């Protein structure tokens, strides 16, 4: 118990560090209790680097894979919509999520005609690796994000059909799993300036992510006809979408202590509104000492 008394708790990283004098030379990871070390490994990089600053040279870390520029542009736009210039989450945003992850497919696999479904010329297998999603990040919504390339005229209307199927891993083929369950739906929409199409696949992926599946194999065929199909049936208006693999967007609620819980802080603020210190009133201190309703003060 004595050693526990001297344990230093570090609120910022939520870690308990062993007594300082006995462990400062050890490798920081060795210093942590086993269970915490596992949690530590899954800490978001920002908190890891804040905890590790001075113990690990982040420069020497393995080079990061660079994300797709379109994906980056989309996430920067999402950031601007969700946070102020100072980086503070916008109060008027009533969204439940406090984490959004965007994954680009890490491998593609084209099917040979033999086992394609009839008429499905552009089917592409996509593998998304979701290892970065932690156990405390709970899925709220998942979207397949398609971006139109710039050559498409703006405010055109499209009718698209999408064949989506999730694959189970077929051990006979290392990369290309077999089909398990499929869904097909069609969309009709108009492309605006932003040239993004979000396809909500939440109900489709929820059971997979809830069972901690971290490798998601999907076969996606997304074919669009420009204009309204009733009016023109010419095939040459089809836009070959499958060549541009979609990104996968996950809206998550992180329940860890380090994450911002919008509803908690609103409740906290409502419980004890803070009265700012009034400098311009010469009697502020006196009023403060007498006027503030502090139950402890009253009891004392």
């Amino acid at each position, binding site marked *: 118990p004595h050693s526990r008394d001297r344990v230093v708790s570090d609120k910022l990283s939520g870690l308990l560090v062993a007594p300082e004098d006995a462990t400062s030379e050890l490798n920081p990871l060795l210093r942590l209790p086993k269970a915490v070390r596992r949690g530590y490994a899954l800490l978001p*990089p920002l908190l890891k680097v804040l905890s590790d600053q001075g113990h690990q040279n982040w420069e020497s870390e393995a080079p990061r894979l*660079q994300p797709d520029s379109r994906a*980056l542009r989309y996430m920067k736009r999402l950031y601007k919509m*969700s946070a102020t210039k100072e980086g503070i989450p916008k109060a008027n945003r009533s969204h439940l999520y*406090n984490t959004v992850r*965007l994954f*680009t497919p890490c491998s593609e696999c084209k099917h040979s005609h033999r086992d394609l479904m009839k008429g499905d010329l552009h089917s592409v297998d996509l593998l998304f690796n979701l290892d970065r999603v932690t156990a405390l990040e709970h899925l709220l919504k998942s979207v397949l994000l398609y971006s139109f390339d710039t050559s498409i005229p703006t405010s055109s209307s499209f009718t698209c059909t999408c064949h989506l199927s999730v694959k189970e891993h077929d051990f006979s083929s290392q990369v290309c799993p077999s089909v398990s369950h499929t869904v097909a739906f069609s969309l009709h929409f108009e492309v605006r300036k932003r040239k993004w199409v979000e396809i909500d696949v939440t109900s489709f992926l929820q059971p997979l992510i809830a069972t901690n599946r971290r490798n998601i194999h999907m076969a996606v065929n997304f074919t669009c006809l420009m204009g309204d199909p009733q009016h023109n049936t010419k095939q040459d208006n089809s836009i070959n979408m499958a060549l541009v693999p979609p990104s996968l967007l996950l809206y998550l609620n992180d329940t860890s*202590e380090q994450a911002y819980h919008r509803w908690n802080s609103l409740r906290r603020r409502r419980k004890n509104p803070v009265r700012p210190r009034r400098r311009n009133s010469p009697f502020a201190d006196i009023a403060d000492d007498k006027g503030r309703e502090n139950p402890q003060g009253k009891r004392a």
Partner: protein
Amino acid sequence: SRRRRDENLKEAPATPPYNLSEYFKQFLFPQNECELHSFRLSFSQLKWDKWIIAPHRYSPQYCKGDCPRVVGHRYGSPVHTMVQNIIYEKLDSSVPKPSCVPAEYSPLSVLTIEPDGSIVYKEYEDMIATKCTCR
């Protein structure tokens, strides 16, 4: 306090009349007391801008200053703060005086690139100090 103020008026140095309010303030509000100080950094200074995409600048702020002997309720300090002051003054000076620390924070939204190339937007709790207290 009025008599003391009158005496001070008589002894007041020859300050030009236009900063009288500043002159009064030094008697009403002690200087160097616990207060929030602004501090702004950019992630490029820490060489983190390779993987922290937004925000470019971050203002964590910090608290600094003396804690008055009798803290009272000005800082929303619990009664324990005054007890600790008494312990320091009368019983054991190795017990530190109450410190000026953050009492409230606001969150920060951060956009980062993960090692596997995925992109994550996350809202972190308690990243910007907004209010100080003595305890």
